[in-house]
């Protein structure tokens, strides 16, 4: 190669590095601007426009779409969706926190294996998995038959098409997203800090409350963010397991965009969802600052 016989002057080294750097940065900037920034701006803009039969969007500019959310019907759906998503998040947290802690305490080899095991179910489309879940949950399905067979219940289980089913489906699909950031935080947690707390007189609970919990809070918030908001958007879970009475915000957005073709309204719903997310992200920044992670621009 010609490059190898050039003198290794600082200028040459810098030039080689510079080109690579420039190309890389260009690609990243371009991608994020085109596919992340602009689309979101478009949605915000769309939310202030009016519905049009042919072109989806038209002037005049209006805030009607947001006002429509004041309608008790939509408020009810939003709150119900929020409550289902919140219950999902709490269950994922309660189950996932000890899970992540336990996995982080095993040997290194086991850890990679266990985390891989967590992902494998995803290697079959989540829609397919939900059908299996439906099979299990149905009134004449597997769980019901098993429980009746064991004599634990007398009548077939009626969980399908209830709120419980939607929550169950959401927990099932989103559980690993709670575990991943928690696992990352637990592996970062220094053992000697936990020992120092004991050394200074704290029992297990006090150590957990004063040391472990504050230091894992960023992981908790990451996990909550990765579960709560997607939960509100996963319309297909509501479709398959919840019937028509257990809608998520995602169902509204989908039906407005794909069925009713009322883009501005769907966009407004999306913006509201995004605002909820922004509030939670602010909480995340506040908490990671508190535990001393000064570089809070690191991606999570």
């Amino acid at each position, binding site marked *: 190669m010609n*490059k190898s016989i050039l003198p290794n002057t600082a200028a040459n080294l810098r030039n080689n590095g510079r080109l690579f750097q420039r190309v890389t940065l260009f690609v990243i900037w371009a991608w994020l601007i085109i596919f*992340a920034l602009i689309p979101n701006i478009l949605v915000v803009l769309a939310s202030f426009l009016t519905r049009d039969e042919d072109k989806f969007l038209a002037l005049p500019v209006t805030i009607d779409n947001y006002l429509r959310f004041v309608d008790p019907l939509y408020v009810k759906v939003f709150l119900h969706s929020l409550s289902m998503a919140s219950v999902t998040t709490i269950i994922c947290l309660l189950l996932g926190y000890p899970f992540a802690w336990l996995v982080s305490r095993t040997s290194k080899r086991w850890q990679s294996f266990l985390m891989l095991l967590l992902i494998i179910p995803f290697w079959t489309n989540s829609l397919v998995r939900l059908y299996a879940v439906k099979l299990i949950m149905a009134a004449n399905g597997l769980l019901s038959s098993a429980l009746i067979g064991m004599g634990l219940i007398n009548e077939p289980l009626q969980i399908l098409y209830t709120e419980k089913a939607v929550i169950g489906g959401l927990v099932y699909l989103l559980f690993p997203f709670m575990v991943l950031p928690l696992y990352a935080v637990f592996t970062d947690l220094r053992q000697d800090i936990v020992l120092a707390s004991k050394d200074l007189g704290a029992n297990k609970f006090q150590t957990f409350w004063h040391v472990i919990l504050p230091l894992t809070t960023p992981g908790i918030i990451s996990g909550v963010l990765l579960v709560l908001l997607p939960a509100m958007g*996963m319309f*297909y879970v509501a479709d398959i397991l919840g019937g028509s009475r257990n809608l998520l915000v995602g169902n509204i957005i989908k039906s407005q965009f794909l069925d009713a073709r009322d883009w501005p309204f769907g966009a407004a719903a999306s913006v509201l969802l995004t605002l909820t997310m922004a509030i939670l*992200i602010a909480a995340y920044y506040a908490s990671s600052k508190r535990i001393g992670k000064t570089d809070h621009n690191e*991606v999570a």
Partner: protein
Amino acid sequence: MTSTTISNAMKWFSRLYLTLIYLVLFAPILVMVVFSFNASKVGYTWAGFSLHWYYELFSNEAMIQAAINSVLLAVVAATVTTVIGSLTALSFQRYDFKGKSVLQSLLFVLMMSPEIVLAISLLALFLMIGIELGFVTLLLAHITFCLPFVVITVSARLASLDNSLLEAARDLGASEFTMIRTVLLPIILPAVLAGWVLAFTLSLDDVVVSTFNTGASFEILPLQIYSMVRVGVKPEVNAVGTILLGISLVGLLISQLLLLKKR
């Protein structure tokens, strides 16, 4: 000593807990696989071993095509995402440039955004540009939502990398690009591969983004299934799911064997 009996009990309790959760996680998968061989036409009760759902599946060309499309998309999306994402992580780690924090924040927001927000925003973009919905738009969408996850995975590895190794390479005369190619990349390869697997997983599993950003020219699995089973249960679904899982597991096995061979 009582302390050892307590810690033994803790050990068994934690094993039990982990096992239970994994069982629940895998139960539907198991059901899917087992019932794909179910002879019954109805679907809820076991009526004996049969391959007829697989035969039904193979005569359902649309479904097969959709499954192939999904896997293809996942592989391509994962590969492109891994390249862009790794380069991004590298730039964040090694270079200081204007607007770095803006980029990092954008990525963070991207990761936290619910998929549906991302999906409709991209739909708006594609329509505005005038692109026809199909493979390309879906690919672009998948790459976008997988990107932050790859960046995080590779960034985490880079953060714990020993810089003196890289400086040694430069000291011996390697250009930035050569150093990255011959020293840095080989060292962080496991993390890069982990990123690829993560992106592949997210893409294959996706339903939301796929619903909004593809068109009739490129059917993918979730939509196929959706349109088939709005009302009832079609057990071919179990067969196609089993096959997808099978393909991925075979892929995993092959990669493990290749890794072992290298050692």
